[in-house]
């Protein structure tokens, strides 16, 4: 049974076409916007990561890692005097070790402050661990932080990496 006259049918047909066209337009706009990556793409920033101290008994360990490093990766790092600030750590017990091709050039820990320099002579690290610091714990909740203004990092192309973030609280990162 058909209760609609021809005029009414025409109105509904036109409205349906408009709805379809509108949906297609909205879909196209969303698709193009998604494609342009403007709203959705996360910026992959170069980041220097200080891992949470891993404590076992009176021994502790901190890993320094990097991710999203540009220009073929990070190949050198220099942390100036007082660039590392610690708490509840015995400075005389600190040992610094380069990881994954990084060689420790120099380090010094006195009182609550420390500094170090390390480099990778063969290649850069785009992501992964680069330095391990072990120490003896002298109190509860030992901490290990960096002053970003006293940190310089260089790339495998021998250029200074100037745009980067310091992260001290993430538990996980990806490469």
């Amino acid at each position, binding site marked *: 049974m058909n209760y609609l006259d021809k005029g009414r049918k025409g109105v509904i047909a036109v409205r349906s076409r408009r709805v379809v066209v509108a949906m297609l337009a909205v879909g196209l706009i969303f698709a193009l916007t*998604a494609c342009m*990556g403007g709203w959705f793409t*996360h910026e992959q920033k170069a980041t220097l990561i200080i891992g949470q101290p891993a404590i076992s008994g009176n021994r502790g360990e901190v890993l320094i890692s990097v991710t999203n490093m540009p220009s073929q990766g990070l190949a050198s790092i220099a942390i100036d005097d007082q660039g590392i600030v610690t708490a509840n750590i015995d400075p005389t017990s600190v040992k610094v070790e380069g990881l994954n091709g990084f060689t420790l050039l120099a380090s010094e820990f006195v009182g609550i402050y420390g500094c170090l320099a390390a480099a990778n002579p063969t290649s850069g690290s785009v992501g992964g661990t680069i330095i391990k610091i072990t120490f003896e714990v002298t109190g509860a909740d030992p901490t290990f932080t960096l002053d970003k203004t006293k940190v310089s990092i260089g790339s495998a192309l021998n250029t200074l990496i100037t745009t980067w973030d310091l992260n001290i609280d993430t538990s996980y990162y990806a490469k």
Partner: protein
Amino acid sequence: MTKKILIATTLLAVVVGLTLFAGGPLSGSWSGKIVINPDPFSFAEVSSIIAVNYAVGGFVAASSSEFALTGFIWQGFGVTGTLGAFNAQGNLLFGASTADFIYDQLIVTTSIAGIDFGFYAAQLSDAVLQGPADGFAVRLAGNAGVLDIVSIAEFGAQVEDAEDDNFNGITIYHAATGLHKHYVTNPLVVGQGFTGEKVTVSGWSFGCVEDIATTLYMTCHGFDFLRFELSAIETGIDWLNFDVDLMFQLQTKTLVVTPTINLGKSTCIDVYAELITDPAVMTSITGIGIYGLGFTTSFGNVTVKDLTVLNTSWYAITTPEYGTKIEEIAEALKDGHEFYPDYWELISIEVVGDGCCGGSSTFLANTYFNKNETALFGWGMTHIEVTIPINSMIFLSGQVEVDTSGLDHIGFGFEVGW
């Protein structure tokens, strides 16, 4: 004391009892390792991995729990199986120490009329520095005559390509311990709009060129790169070939010519050689550099191996876990292989024998030499590993490393299968 004996007996009974599951739908393994630094006394490594597999209806479900010195790090679940013409694989990863969902992945593949179809989907949670992200990719692969054609349409995710350094999958790290997990599907964005298309055509060869591969990659921003790779171009000299990698990007053109030397198969001593080129003029070959020598022989159950690295600035010997071989340091770093940067020579003796109760026992002694040491013959370090089977499903292991400063570390491990 009685309580300790009771607990130890119960644990032993459970472990031995688990081996009785062998042959049933439930299988798995439990491996553990403790490495101790004696001076000052500390645990260098404490790890435990429990894997449980349950097979039902063509599918195998797996659970993997990974522990480290600081606690419970990873809890992973996986499922693999076949349903009709479809092969499926699923992975789920949780960060146990923070009670976070980390990552999941679903891969479905099938082959119809000579065309391989693959669907790859993944999600990365916001607990990871680069998250949240999700996406999927559709892979089509087939042949047209002698040509191999692979098309990957990306909707927010990339698929690992072993032939292309720009597509490495995803490796997720636990920042405090450095422990990591690797997966082939790398989600890059939130939302699943079209983000890229990669088409690779390879298998084309003619005359003096073994293989020509062409890759076109388009993203949402338009043209990304076009690459031509010509492999093993013959020069008319038997031992000299070269590869050409020509890449066009929007504002750059890169040409890399890599000459390669082929010394043929050695019957006695392996010679590791490379062509030396002038960094300023890459097509100018200035010499042949021999950066290593190798020798391996077996008699009975005993294998003797010697490796010598002559250029320790660029090459190193990988650790036993990574095959004890000479590898370029840059390649080892890229592939995540551990190596000894300080040692230039290795003498290794490995003995494999039948265990008393099933399985086989192994003894490995690697002795390394260091140019900078003043010990006898420049001895640097000795690494000894022993694996002993209790029965065909239970293995105990031990390792000791001694260097010029004394005992470096001692370790114990076990593996139980069922």
